[in-house]
């Protein structure tokens, strides 16, 4: 039986229909003559409220609403990696074939390429018993990603028929399994409702860092595979550049980048830049592990709300294959504002600053889809969520930032003052925090150096001391400080300029290995200890500051390439030598 509703109210993206008692909440519907795609958000008696993912201009009352019988879902199968999709998984390059430069409404639901033939290797055999999550075929999706086709959830049984390995399209049946009297045809793709987390076997404790090559993160506020990270910052503080850096260099297998309500040119930038960049670990183009979801700020607002769910569902799908996936959401504030905008149009009772009362629970549901897990097929895999937050007016006490803080374990606060001084990345080195430091301590001890965390703590302490001293300096000037305190200021300057500031555009500095990070910290520490011993001998701070080695230390990030780290050992030697000479002079 086909069910049809009738449009009665139109208010921007919100449409109300009657005669819809048999529709379900979250069901996908098509609206009107143009067949606009929408989703049912609530039902009361005979009346349903629908949010429409496309422009509603031209829609009339009394047009019909058609049921699709299924919740709003995405298609999961080969062809996702390297693609750029809109908020409801429609490939933007296919939309371009329909209408050249602009995105029209009424083009229907497009998804993965159904005509493309893939080289499929069938690994299941007749008679095998399969259960949900088991892999029955593989496809080399890109040169670095092996796509594993898994038995959909809720299906299990014995294999009755298999096709031979060869070329197939995503809707071709390759395996038939039977369970009792029922048989299931398994193809190369499956559908999944975006608002429902995909099942896992169990959650595992977090124990590995997500290495990003960014010094202030890896060394000072490390983040973990399977973790949740909030990245708040007002405009112009470099959120997007930081997100791009993480997307480029972090050591996840797959990156899902959700541009949620952001700038069109930024997505174009990623599209032009990523294919040309090489992943330092695999040597393959970065685009071969990247999925882009672009809902620019001027696209319909309901699709913006959907884009976050679409992104996390794609991430979960690849996680289920056993990959470490990192999802960058830029920005979750735009998503929260989309919730607010739709909520306002629904005339719901607003809570704080007009946001709906369910904002915290929606944020929690999203961040809780991250995690380090054992998948249904028994592999360890993870999803890391890095959510950018754009606090209104740069004020961190607004509801989205406040609530995000409750659900993330690491908080990398971008600071306007640092950004104005062009200190990039402008991650505040004092107010940021990471709950993963203690969890990852053992890993750093075993894999980097036994004193890595101690060095880090020492440097943070120096920076904290500098902060306190700065208050005094602002009142009385730097010259009146005793020598040991002046040395703290000088060392803090070196930490900031020589270590924390990192140039995303510099070929050597954009990505830095953990080994180099450790050695750089070691050099700064060695300088500090040398200088401190000089000061104890009464050597004036001005003499210590005028040593040439300081310039070398400040420039080591540019002058020492990642593959020539032995040059850093020379710096230790040179520092010791210069200050030994100085000490001898004064003895």
């Amino acid at each position, binding site marked *: 039986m086909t069910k049809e509703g009738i449009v009665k109210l139109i208010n921007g993206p919100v449409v109300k229909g009657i005669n819809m008692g048999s529709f379900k909440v979250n069901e996908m519907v098509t609206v009107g003559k143009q067949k606009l795609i929408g989703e049912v958000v609530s039902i009361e008696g005979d009346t349903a409220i629908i949010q429409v993912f496309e422009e509603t*201009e*031209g829609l009339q009352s009394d047009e019909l609403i058609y049921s699709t019988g299924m919740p709003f879902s995405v298609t999961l199968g080969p062809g996702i990696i390297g693609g750029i999709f809109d908020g409801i998984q429609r490939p933007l390059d296919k939309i371009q074939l329909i209408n050249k430069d602009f995105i*029209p409404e009424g083009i229907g639901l497009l998804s993965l390429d159904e005509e493309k033939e893939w080289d499929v290797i069938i690994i299941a055999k007749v008679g095998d018993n399969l259960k949900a999550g088991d892999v029955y075929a593989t496809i080399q999706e890109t040169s670095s990603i092996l796509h594993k086709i898994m038995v959909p959830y809720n299906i299990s049984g014995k294999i009755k028929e298999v096709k031979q390995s060869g070329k197939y399209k995503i809707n071709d049946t390759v395996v038939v399994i039977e369970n009792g009297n029922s048989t299931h045809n398994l193809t190369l793709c499956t559908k999944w409702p975006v608002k429902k987390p995909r099942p896992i076997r169990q959650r595992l404790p977090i124990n590995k860092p997500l290495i990003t090559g960014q010094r202030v993160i890896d060394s000072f506020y490390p983040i973990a595979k399977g973790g949740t990270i909030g990245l708040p910052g007002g405009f112009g503080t470099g959120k997007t550049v930081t997100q791009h850096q993480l997307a480029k260099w972090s050591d996840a297998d797959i990156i899902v980048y959700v541009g949620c309500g952001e700038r*069109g040119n930024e997505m174009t930038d990623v599209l032009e830049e990523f294919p040309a960049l090489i992943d330092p670990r695999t040597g393959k183009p970065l685009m071969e592990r990247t999925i882009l979801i672009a809902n620019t700020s*001027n696209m319909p607002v309901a699709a913006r709300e959907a884009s976050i769910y679409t992104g996390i569902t794609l991430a979960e799908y690849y996680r289920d294959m056993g990959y470490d996936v990192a999802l960058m959401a830029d920005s979750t504030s735009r998503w929260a504002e989309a919730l607010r905008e739709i*909520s306002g149009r629904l005339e719901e009772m607003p809570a704080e600053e007009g946001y709906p009362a369910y904002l915290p629970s929606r944020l929690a549901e999203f961040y809780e889809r991250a995690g380090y897990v054992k998948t249904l097929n028994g592999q360890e895999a993870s999803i890391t969520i890095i959510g950018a937050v754009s606090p209104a*007016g740069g004020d961190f006490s607004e509801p989205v930032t406040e609530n995000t803080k409750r659900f993330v374990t690491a908080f990398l606060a971008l600071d306007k003052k640092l950004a104005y*001084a062009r200190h990039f990345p402008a991650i505040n080195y004092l107010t940021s925090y990471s709950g993963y430091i203690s969890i990852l301590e053992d890993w750093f001890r075993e894999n980097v150096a036994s004193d890595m965390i101690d060095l880090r703590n020492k440097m943070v302490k120096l920076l904290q001391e500098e902060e306190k001293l700065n208050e005094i300096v602002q009142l009385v000037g730097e010259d009146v400080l005793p020598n040991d305190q002046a040395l703290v200021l000088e060392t803090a300057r070196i930490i900031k300029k020589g270590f924390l500031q990192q140039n995303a555009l510099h070929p050597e500095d954009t990505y830095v290995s953990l080994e180099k990070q450790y050695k750089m910290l070691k050099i700064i520490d060695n300088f500090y200890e040398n200088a401190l011993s000089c000061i104890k001998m009464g050597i004036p701070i001005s003499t210590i500051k005028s040593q040439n080695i300081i310039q070398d230390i400040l420039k080591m990030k540019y002058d020492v390439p990642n593959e020539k780290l032995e040059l850093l050992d020379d710096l230790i030697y040179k520092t010791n030598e210069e200050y030994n000479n100085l000490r001898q002079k004064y003895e």
Partner: protein
Amino acid sequence: MKKEYLKLQKVEGPLVVLSNIKDVAYGEIVSIKVDDGEVRKGKVIKIDGDKVIVQVFEGTSGISTDNTSVKFLGEPQTIPLSKEILGRTFNGVGEPIDGGYGILSSYKQNINGRPINPVARRYPRNFIQTGISAIDALMTLIRGQKLPIFSGNGIAHKELAAQIISQAKIEGATSDNFAVVFGAMGVRHDDADYFIKSFESSGVLDHVVMYINTADDSIVERISTPRCALTAAEYLAFKHNMHVLVILMDMTSYAEALREISSAKEEVPSRKGYPGYLYSDLSTIYERAGMLKESEGSITLIPILTMPNDDITHPIPDLTGFITEGQIVLNRGLNQKSIYPPIDVLPSLSRLMKDGIGADYTREDHGDLQSQLFSAYSKVQDIRSLSQIIGEDDLGEIDRLYLKFGREFENKFIAQGRTENRSVKETLDLGWYILSILPETELDRMKTELINKYYVKNRER
């Protein structure tokens, strides 16, 4: 044959409500004939069952519930377009107000536009020389960028915008394919006249299309003014491959008009009473700037907004900054010191400059030089606040040099004449000249070879 409706249910502010209506489309244009013969236009902004809410462009003054006849025209708001629009002046809904004929063209375009597909965009890279040092060196304008000016009442933003228009050198633009589209929303008459005069004196008037909605015009028309302007810009850029510079002023008046209509619609307000969709609404204006792969033309957008109370965290500048690719912030303090243009360089920024400067576009030292100037000038601010407490005499030698650098930077680098047009080379050389006040050890963002090439000779001078 479309029906005419003779009875209104309600008239309130700029809105009228009709009931018992059939076959009306969301966003459709409505013609309202008042009994004195005047015909007004409106737009359907909400359909609720058989009840329709219409906002009236000319306002509802003189309208009662039973003195009108309303006709639904069955199409969205469009404007006719041809190259004849160049040199003409229109009101906020695209009707000529310069005494000339209406534009006769069968090519009509929906003023709401549709989002550009990110796949179809061309990433902007070519720099536009404005001849203004602070902008060219530190927040370089790129062809196809949207870069707003954040100003305040009584600060010289008009003068700056006029100077940019008359001096801008766009790569690939000649006198044949260069156009200016000026959209004025809620500006004073004398401000509108100022721009017309300045277009005249810089000889670009034949290449300018103006959409003018002055402060005493209808607020509903104010909503469609920037949309008409950008529809015209899209037409010139993408149909005729022209390089179009769009100036929109004042976005604050625009947002206030939006708030006024929203409150008449009894919508749930969000920050400072502005509607929750302010961000989405502004983005459908700003995101129309850019370039397409399939077209030679470009739209460079410079919106001007006056920050209420000079507050950059106010929702209008705040949301604008999240959509646009940077911002040029003007400062009242500099304005009062008679420094023109009063650009506050520290909060100003161009997000696209990283890809549009350097050896291929401007000069190889540009990137490092701007970073060093920013960092040095930011240090000047710290030292200034210190010197206010302990006095300049008690400062260290290097700190005193920084203060000198700060003064020269403001008076010689930022400040320039209203017709002074500096080439980018002159600007960069001037930057080095002022930077050479500081000793070499302070240049911590500079590559050694650049110091040798540019700094040493200035230092010796």
